[in-house]
């Protein structure tokens, strides 16, 4: 064999072997994730132990160009944690914006993610929206989740890229050879177009759902640090304060509406905290699907005024 051919063949074999080494373990992990029939979505999270979170890397590292493009062009962006994602991933949300021909994007993240990570993602996006809705639950804390740290780590791209390719190849393989896959891990899929979640078996508790009682203890006042972080985050959004709407969905343990209102007031933003009776949560914090529909419908009834007062969307 000629030495030149040896080198060429070696490099080709290295390419194949390297790709397989990166993608095969994640393909196997993703093959356990319960699939969806929805189109235009990507696997954002799956309880399969080797796969877990992908959405943090997908946005921070811009691994889903279609989703990033939509985020960049969205007129309204919703920020928050998984609670926000569950509350706004509803038909009421899409109906509201569709009727008004407004583009929107849900940019909440699992793992109780706070505003620091959202700000980091937005700092990498050239065009910001004209109106932001901030779901305040744990949003003004200072921490980064482990998933966020992983996405922001020095060598994160290869790791998250292997998840992307693994999820895509598992989807293809499981479509062709159904018997090979054992889908038993709860999953969350995320829409490219709106960022809304479709969750399958996640957040459900073995002890059943938890209704929200009418009377709950009041949450404490925000700390001075919360105010400082809220100010900093509001400033980074580069919109007038009145174009920031701060909200909160009720939870089963504590009433945070006053806390949320105080933060909104401090940054001169609008607060919109609908009070809806008879809501039910999956785990005390995440609304179940019917409750999310009801709550978001009421929320958007109150948003019209804020939207019209805020600015001219056609400028976008």
């Amino acid at each position: 064999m000629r030495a030149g051919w040896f080198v060429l063949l070696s490099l080709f074999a290295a390419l194949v072997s390297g790709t397989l080494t990166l993608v095969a373990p994640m393909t196997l992990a993703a093959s356990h994730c319960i699939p969806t029939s929805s189109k235009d979505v990507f696997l954002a999270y799956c309880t399969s132990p080797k796969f877990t979170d992908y959405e943090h890397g997908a946005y921070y590292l811009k691994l889903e160009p279609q989703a990033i493009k939509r985020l960049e062009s969205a007129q309204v962006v919703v920020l928050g944690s998984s609670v926000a994602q569950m509350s706004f991933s509803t038909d009421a949300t899409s109906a509201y914006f569709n009727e008004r021909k407004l583009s929107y994007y849900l940019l909440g993240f699992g793992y109780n993610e706070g505003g620091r990570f959202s700000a980091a993602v937005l700092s990498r996006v050239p065009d910001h929206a004209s109106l932001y809705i901030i779901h305040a639950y744990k949003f003004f804390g200072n921490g980064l989740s482990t998933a966020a740290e992983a996405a922001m780590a020095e060598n994160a791209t290869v790791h998250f890229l292997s998840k992307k390719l693994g999820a895509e190849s598992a989807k293809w393989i499981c479509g062709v050879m159904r018997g090979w896959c054992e889908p038993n891990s709860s999953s969350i899929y995320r829409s490219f177009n709106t960022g809304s979640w479709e969750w399958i078996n996640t957040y459900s508790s073995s002890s059943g759902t938890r209704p929200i009682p009418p009377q709950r203890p009041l949450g404490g006042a925000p700390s001075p640090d919360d105010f400082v972080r809220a100010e900093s985050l509001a400033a980074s959004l580069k919109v007038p304060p009145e174009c920031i709407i701060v909200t909160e969905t009720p939870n089963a343990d504590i009433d945070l509406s006053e806390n949320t209102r105080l933060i909104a007031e401090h940054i001169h933003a609008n607060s919109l905290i609908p009070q809806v009776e008879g809501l039910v949560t999956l785990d005390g914090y995440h609304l179940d699907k019917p409750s999310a529909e009801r709550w978001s419908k009421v929320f958007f009834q109150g948003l019209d005024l804020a939207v019209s007062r805020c600015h001219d969307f056609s400028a976008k």
Partner: protein
Amino acid sequence: MLFHSPFFLFVFLPIVLAGFFVLGWLRWPAVAALWLALNSLLFYAWDDPLYLLPLILSSIVFNYSIGLSLVMTPRRWALALGIIGNLGLLGTFKYLGLATETLSEIGIPVTLTKLSLPIGISFYTFTQIAFLVDAYRGEAREYNPIHYLLFVAFFPHLIAGPILHHKEMMPQFALRETYRARWPAIALGLSWFAAGLFKKVIFADGVAAFSDPVFAVADAGKLVTTSAAWIGAAAYSLQIYFDFSGYSDMAIGLALMFGIAFPLNFFSPYKADSLIDFWRRWHMTLSRFLRDYLYFPLGGNRKGPARRMINLMVTMLLGGLWHGASWNFVAWGGIHGLGLLINHAWRSFGITIPWPVSRLVTLLVVILAWVPFKAATLSSAWSIWRSMFGVSHGDSIVDATSAGFWIASLSFISLVLPNTAQIFGRSPLEWRFTAWRLNGFWSASVGLALGAAIAMSFRAPVSFLYFRF
């Protein structure tokens, strides 16, 4: 810059290699050498150019000037000046912290001063001390400044060796053939590189999962169980071997791609039948340096048995200290020094013992000696030793089954299988079928190993252990 970083593999190496051979093809060997030398400096200074570049350049200019004067007129004072200058530089950056700390601990009021250790300083300082001594002895004649710059800075050996002799490198830089692309050398170099990378990323980083946690617990002042202590010590013995020999294989492979042959640095050290044999197989270029430039100048074995013992012990203690500014390394060198003294004494009695026993005893001493080398402090090393010999009531830290699998597998590879020098034809091979050849099987094997190792290293590149020395 790490050899297994994406930038090195996909940008730096292809560009430097292509540029080097294009310039060679244009019959501009001096420009090709300069290109390689400048890029080697870029490689070295990549992480902190303002700190690293002046340091290495001043070291090179200083040594080249002294060397040039020694080549023309070998004066003792010039050699002394050169050696003092080099040791002064090394001492300032590497040992000032230890010296001030020790003085402070024994009650002498000094300001604690610890400078950050510039990467590779121990290697390029020793390389240049050897050059000065060779120049003084009249053994270094070539003094082309570009070739000298390349000799010191050539990136495959700059950070962690092998420690090169001027006389084995300069003739290669002077050859016109070196600057022409030779595909067989590139294929062989790629194979060495793949083997080294695989050893580092798969073996060394893999088995580190069983050594690091054990030593971390001991370093935190806690006791570990007897089994954990043995697992930790054995795993570290394998980790450091595959890490450093992997690095050396990669360096040899990279140099070969540029048409340069490096000396071997490892030859199955854990197959050694004695400590004397071990030091002929472990970090061979450092052993050679210590022998030629320290042990022999001290008198070697020419001044009687007592002086020989002292010379040997001094050499090993200083060899230990060369690894780092810590009494742990001195302890490591001391254990090996003592072992070598016993070994020589044993030999002088003319008693022979069966090789399995001698090999096992040698391995045991080597493993025990690695404990202070790895431990953060002498007290944590003492704690591990105590645990190894039964004083133990700690928690189980590592999964013994997985650790057993890893240790057994890597032990088989290092104790039974041929080494890379044998496989790639630098040394006689007992098992012919394992010999590297230019064929499809080896090409595919090299590619598979290379691809898997690169992919694994991309997930979380881990630096080489010897980078900190």
